[in-house]
């Protein structure tokens, strides 16, 4: 298993995603002799996981069952331990496409945070690209580096514990794309420009507040970036369900033989397959500002 390559069978040291049903999942580090408690009972790694195929149904000690899934960055995003607020797949998907990421891309990112976007980037740029990720919090930087190793993607990423606004990304003239998710991205625009290839590249800044966006856009324009555009993307989930709608009874158009006040109740109804929107609208995550560094 790795986060950038599928494999068929579960091995020791793998990260697997236990699917418990109804959007309930949990990550598991597969180890000889280890056990994992679930609401359906115990999963014994040696017996139930190691050597089994990903996608297998595993029966737990109490009789209930779960599925064991191969990890993907999308599943990881939903299950990773949060050390900071993270980016979710909807934003990640657009960032990936708008930054034109693909195998071989060299990307600079700051801040690493909990590594949600990092894993998605690594998946996309493998096997020949590289991610330079900067995190100013020492423990978070260490934890991220540790996770990348466990997830067998360490060779594709360099974690640097420094302040991107003061010291930049630690590389110059190599990046095809730069991503910023920091409180003051305008302070890092110059560093972003320096990290990028001379011949051009794409930059993205993610900010929850429009005031941050304004300052960042100004800084980008001052540094000569083009095609500056800010957007927001939202995902609406549709709940599929069967509903029964009763039909109104407008009565008969013939005069009744024995006029009564109480009409015979009709049980007519129609079954519809439809969707309903969720109770709450998807919340605002942040604005995504993209720009192109022009070729010199």
């Amino acid at each position, binding site marked *: 298993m790795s986060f*950038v*390559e*599928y494999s*068929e069978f579960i091995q020791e040291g793998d990260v697997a995603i236990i*699917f418990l*049903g109804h*959007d309930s999942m949990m990550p598991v580090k597969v180890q000889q002799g280890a056990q994992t408690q679930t609401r359906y009972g115990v999963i014994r790694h040696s017996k139930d996981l190691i050597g089994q*195929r990903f*996608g*297998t149904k595993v029966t737990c000690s109490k009789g209930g069952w779960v*599925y064991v*899934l*191969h990890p*993907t*960055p*999308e599943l990881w995003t939903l299950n990773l331990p949060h050390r900071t607020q993270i980016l979710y*797949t909807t934003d990640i*998907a*657009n960032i*990936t*496409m*708008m930054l*034109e990421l*693909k*195998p*071989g891309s060299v990307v600079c990112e700051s801040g690493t945070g909990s590594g949600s976007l990092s894993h*998605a980037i690594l*998946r*996309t740029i*493998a*096997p*020949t690209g590289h991610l330079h990720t900067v995190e100013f919090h020492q423990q978070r930087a260490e934890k991220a580096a540790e996770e990348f190793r466990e997830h067998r993607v360490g060779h594709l990423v360099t974690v640097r514990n420094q302040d991107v606004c003061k010291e930049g990304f630690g*590389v*110059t*003239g*190599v990046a095809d794309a730069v991503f910023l998710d920091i409180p003051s991205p305008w302070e890092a625009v110059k560093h972003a420009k320096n990290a990028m*290839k*001379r*011949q*051009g590249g794409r930059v993205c800044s993610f900010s929850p507040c*429009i005031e941050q*966006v304004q300052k960042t*856009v100004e800084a980008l324009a001052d540094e*000569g970036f083009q095609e*500056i*555009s*800010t*957007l*927001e*993307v*939202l*995902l*609406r*989930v*549709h709940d*599929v369900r069967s509903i029964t709608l009763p039909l109104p009874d407008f009565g008969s158009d013939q005069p009744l033989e024995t006029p009564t006040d109480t009409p015979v109740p009709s049980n007519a109804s129609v079954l519809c*397959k439809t*969707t309903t929107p969720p109770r709450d609208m998807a919340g605002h995550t942040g*604005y995504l500002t993209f720009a192109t560094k022009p*070729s010199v």
Partner: protein
Amino acid sequence: MADNGDNDSQHRVNEGDYVVLKRGDIYKAVQIQKKKKTVFEKQWFFLDNAVGELYGTTFEVVTGGTLQPRKPKCVESSADAKEAGTDNRNILDDGKSQKLTRDDIETLKEQGLKGQEIVQQLIENSTTFRDKTEFAQEKYIKKKKKKYENSVMVLRPSCRVLAMMYHGREPGKICHLRYDTLAQMLTLGNIHAGSKVLVFETCAGLVLGAVMERMGGYGSVVQMYPGGGPVRAGMESFGFPSHFHDTLHEFPICHVNALLAGALDTEAKDKDAGGQEKKVKMEEKRKKLAAAAAVLEGRNADGLVIASRFHPCPVLLGLIKFLAPSRPFVVYSQYKEPLIECYTKLREQGGAVSLRLTDSWIRHYQHPCL
């Protein structure tokens, strides 16, 4: 680690390259062929002068139909420290504010004035310009630029650019697939290098190209196709290196049931039909079919992407049999109800978890012109 300055040939336009022309929000995919006239936004010009320039360069179309690279830092400074009003209460929209006539403007064009210069002339000859608010002035400039702009940017093709182009120009050809939706599909489908992906699309090859871009030439892609032959125009516009095509297979869906039943015959037959040329062609076809069948037979695809005008339900139920366990699939439909059916049938049939029916929304925000 610095980049090698003298080896930027991979960043420069070559003859024969597939590129995308851009002006504002209008894109057009073309192939660079010297001495061939290209039309873009009602202008005819030759792309010869783009060869050798860096991708991302902006050119001016000069009289005679040739391209001239635009000098950088050519941002018009018409918006700094200029007079502006506070609101439009006293501005009369009587159509008489512009003192230049259509003939005057034609004359300016004939004199070879650049788009930017024409816009400057229009501003100077407008009696109401200085009364407009800053925002109204920017809006005016943006509108005039759009009309008189003469510049063309030459871009390297990418999923981003081509998806926006198709959505703007020919949405009907791509089942009205919006680019943010395509972005979701590629990520949720975990499309990445080294995997085996099945694609069934009727989006002019755009979705196929997008998948191939994310695979980077590693792994394999099987394009399942419904009719006479696979449509690949959109994919060609990506301008992939030739080795990418080695990873691409095609398989006609009319043979799916036979393949699933183990009844597909891909052995060579000695047909007496036609001459040598026809025999060679048929042998080629047979080989390709056999190769694609071999890739599919194992029923261990890593990903399945469906985006077509066909009813998605039978397509999905048919092709999902080729997907390995614990692998994602993504189905796009322009319409919701057919997907409700997909969802329901999959729930009844079992064998799929984490099913979600979603739609993506994107909104652009406005910046002041800087």
